[in-house]
């Protein structure tokens, strides 16, 4: 076969070109440390790298969510411990106060101490985290969890109804705190002062202790409290809403009509209902008031003979405010000092139980965080290993190929010059 001179030259040049291209490719790999510089080199691996990267970024985000959650739960844990210590002290004081040998000034001294504890507990319940959020306020963390009602002197929960959760893995969410409502307010109680659901706030328990020590042994009013979040009011601008408030069934029935009205907040509803009660002359028997973000109706008269009931006549108010039709609550009779303190003692134990529940739940969540964290960590390590296998260069292999390629290029160059020397014209 004839080889044309120009073609033989071209062949050598082509050969050297392709060697050089391979060398350049290897050099690029060696300097970047990556196997693949463009998806075309391994489309499947390129897509896998993106998927793995995404997976790692996501899991690392979960890790930082875990860190944030842990910080918040640790803060809650120490707040709960502080609350626990306060209740222990309160229990000591209660037991001390039960001693019949104390005179009224001794009791007053204890009362001041209890008042201090009450303030202290309110401070704990209104603990704020580094971002300035009230940790027991749920999804309304910009307002304090508990505030003192100026009229009744009771601390009531005014945070949100929902506890925030954070994502700690693609399938697992963990609450980063607990609602103050559940920890401090909604505590089961068997005492006479418990509300219609058999619950009593620890603040009310401490207040009862303080009141008792101050020789205030009043009978209680009948109270029914709606359990719906009415902070942002109710809109009845296009609805018919009527219901009856009944004091001491059979004696006073106050019809309330909220039809066609719009309320911006719970206080507006209270003002309107009280206005209607006053207008009808029922305000001496029945009153409405706010309890944090909820609404409450009370019978003005106290004692077991007094009661308050709510009956629906038309519209959705009962459901919207969280009452049931015919819900009724009788007032509590006046107790003796010892009986009141007895109830306080058992309710303080119930409060300790509630704190303990919250603390063990926090502990369980912290455990879950640890477990998830190590799972996530392992996942990230494994995924990074896979990623490295997919995208990182095997240096030993690449360097030896580089060596080989250099030799091949040198050989091609030397062959070229040798062949070019061969020409018949040299001998003419």
């Amino acid at each position, binding site marked *: 076969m004839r080889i044309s001179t120009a073609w033989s030259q071209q062949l050598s040049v082509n050969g050297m070109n392709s060697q050089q291209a391979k060398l350049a490719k290897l050099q690029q790999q060696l300097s970047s440390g990556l196997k693949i510089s*463009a998806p075309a080199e391994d489309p499947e691996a*390129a897509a896998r790298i993106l998927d793995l990267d995404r997976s790692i970024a996501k899991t690392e985000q979960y890790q930082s969510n875990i860190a944030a959650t842990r910080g918040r739960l640790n803060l809650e844990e120490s707040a709960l411990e502080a609350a626990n210590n306060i209740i222990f002290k309160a229990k000591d004081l209660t037991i001390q106060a039960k001693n019949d040998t104390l005179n009224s000034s001794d009791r007053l001294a204890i009362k001041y101490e209890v008042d201090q504890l009450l303030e202290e507990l309110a401070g704990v319940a209104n603990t704020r985290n580094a971002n300035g959020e009230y940790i027991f306020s749920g999804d309304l963390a910009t307002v304090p969890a508990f505030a003192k009602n100026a009229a009744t002197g009771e601390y009531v929960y005014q945070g949100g109804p929902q506890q925030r959760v954070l994502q700690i893995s693609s399938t697992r969410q963990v609450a980063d705190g607990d609602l103050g409502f559940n920890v401090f307010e909604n505590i089961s109680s068997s005492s006479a002062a418990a509300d219609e659901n058999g619950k009593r706030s620890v603040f009310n328990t401490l207040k009862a202790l303080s009141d008792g020590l101050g020789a205030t042994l009043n009978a209680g009013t009948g109270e029914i409290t709606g359990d719906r979040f009415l902070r942002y009011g109710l809109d009845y601008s296009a609805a018919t809403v009527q219901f009856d408030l009944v004091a001491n069934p059979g004696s006073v029935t106050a019809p309330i009509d909220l039809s066609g009205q719009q309320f911006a907040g719970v206080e507006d509803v209270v003002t309107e209902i009280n206005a209607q009660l006053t207008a009808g002359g029922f305000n001496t028997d029945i009153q409405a008031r706010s309890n944090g973000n909820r609404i409450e109706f009370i019978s003005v008269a106290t004692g077991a003979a007094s009661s308050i009931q709510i009956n629906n006549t038309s519209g959705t108010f009962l459901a919207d405010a969280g009452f049931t039709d015919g819900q009724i609550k009788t007032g509590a009779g006046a107790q003796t000092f010892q009986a009141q303190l007895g109830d306080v003692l058992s309710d303080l134990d119930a409060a300790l139980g509630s704190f303990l529940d919250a603390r063990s739940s926090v502990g369980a969540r912290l455990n879950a965080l640890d477990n998830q964290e190590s799972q996530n960590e392992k996942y990230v390590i494994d995924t990074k290993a896979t990623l490295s296998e997919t995208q990182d260069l095997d240096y030993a292999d690449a360097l030896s190929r580089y060596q080989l390629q250099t030799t091949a290029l040198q050989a091609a160059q030397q062959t070229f010059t040798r062949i070019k020397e061969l020409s018949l014209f040299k001998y003419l």
Partner: protein
Amino acid sequence: MSGLLATSLSGLTAAQRSLETVQHNISNVNTEGYSRQRVQQGTMPARYTGDGYIGQGVHVNTITRSYDQFITKQLNSSLSAFGDADRYHQLATRVDNIMADPSTGMAPSMNRFFDALNAVADDPTSIPSRQVLLSETESLAQNFNMMDSRFEEIRAQNNSDIGTMVNDINSLAKSIAELNVELTSAIGKTQGLRPPNDLLDKQDALLSKLAEIVNVSVVPQKDGSSSVFIGNGQALVLGGSSAEFTTIQDEFDPKRLEIGLKTSSGITNVTSQISGGSLTGSLRFRDEVLEPAQQKLGQVVAGLAMEFNALHNKGFDLSGTAGLDMFKFSGAEEVPVIKNPLNAGNAVVTVNYQDVNDNPSAAGNLDYSDFKLTYVNAGGGVDYTLTRVRDNQVINLTATTVAGISTLSFAATQPANIDVSALPGIDIEIDLTGGKTISVGDEFLARPTYSAAQKIGVNIDDPKKIAAATNVEVDPVTKQPVLDGLGNPVIINGPMPSDNRNALQLAELRNKNILSGGSASIGGGYSQIVSDVGALTQAAEYSSSAQEALLNQAKESRESLAGVNLDEEAANLIKFQQAYQASAQSISIARSVFDTLIGAIR
């Protein structure tokens, strides 16, 4: 006696011609497309004498070039195939590099966006983390814009290349036609007995150049000219006249160039007949790589915007108001609609993305294609048809007209074997109010995914407006949502600053398979594009190097036949030099013979 001298002289002349030809070969050793030439010698007609036929020496029959029509044809078809594959590969590599480039690649930007969303979920009251989310959203949208503009740059470059190639075809066709005239006269001069070798080489070179741009069929004519045809017999060169190509703009999309042939009756679209060559490479690249990549990117973008906006609309911001759209699409219309200029009616068609809150599978139904809407009025509930441009699948649509506005829905009767069961994630409205009309055959092109990446932007500039909350009221004790009388969750009508439930759901979009009928997530959809483009580029690389090998074989065959080998020429030089010397020597012998005879007489 005189015969002796004449015979020697003929040898001398023949050797001289051969030496000249060898020198011509040597001089052209590096000339592209040169075919080595050889002197064809023949014996002179013998003179009859009483002793028999006496040889009269040698004469030069003709000078031929080493040429094989088959090899040349093979070379040209290889040139076309390589031109096609190589151009396709080069262009695909550019798209591939954009995908891989970490500064333009979307993957890091999407990761940062979702991380920022998670940070807002962790800390919904924090304005700084909301601000970070806004900036990341902004930069995500900008990255989408930038990627699309790089695609558009490639498209513009490709279009200008197509224009240049069409011009090259025209000027090559013109040169071939002019050369045809020259060849016909050069060959006519010798009655076709002595080929004008260098002109023929020039013709081959021009045809090869043409073959690199587009596949042509060449029909050599008896008079030495060559007729050149494209596709199914569209004549490009016939004798001394050449036709002219031109680029024509697609009636719907001026950025989409087609190839037309100027004829006496106007311009004929010959795009579908073009094959081979770099022109085909450019056209194939546009249709197989660029367009789908851009459409698929748009599908990811539109899908993300639809899902995100729908969820964001359901949430509530820091001031307790319902979330606005997070993403918006710039321009007067959300989905661009182009009206065929030939439409008889003047109805106005508006196309919008469907609301995922109304149709949960809207984003999944998005398809990476343009859609052509045609008014057919075929009866039986088939009022319009919608053609998916990427594969021409047709679906039937039923119009419901209220107060002059027709809304289109998926018709009850559909063609057999269609692979969809709903509109492709878009709502179509036809405005026929105020006496506007539509005629059967009127066409509109809707482009839901083509320009989504270019048009996307951020609608919100206030970090407080990020809707991280769902405001669904929950019973604090049972932790279950409170339901109203109709069984729907109760929504709190005011700010719940620490509620992060909507942000959590937004962040979960990262894992949700929302695209392509629920088969791919946002990130997955993007890596799909990367691997699609990568696979196409890889295949193009293989095919380009295979075609290069074939081309080299064809070149080698041609070079083996027609190329100049200097050693061979050196040997020939010696051969013809010796022949020349011998002939010269025999002239000297003839002279001495002559002298002997003269001397004998003297």
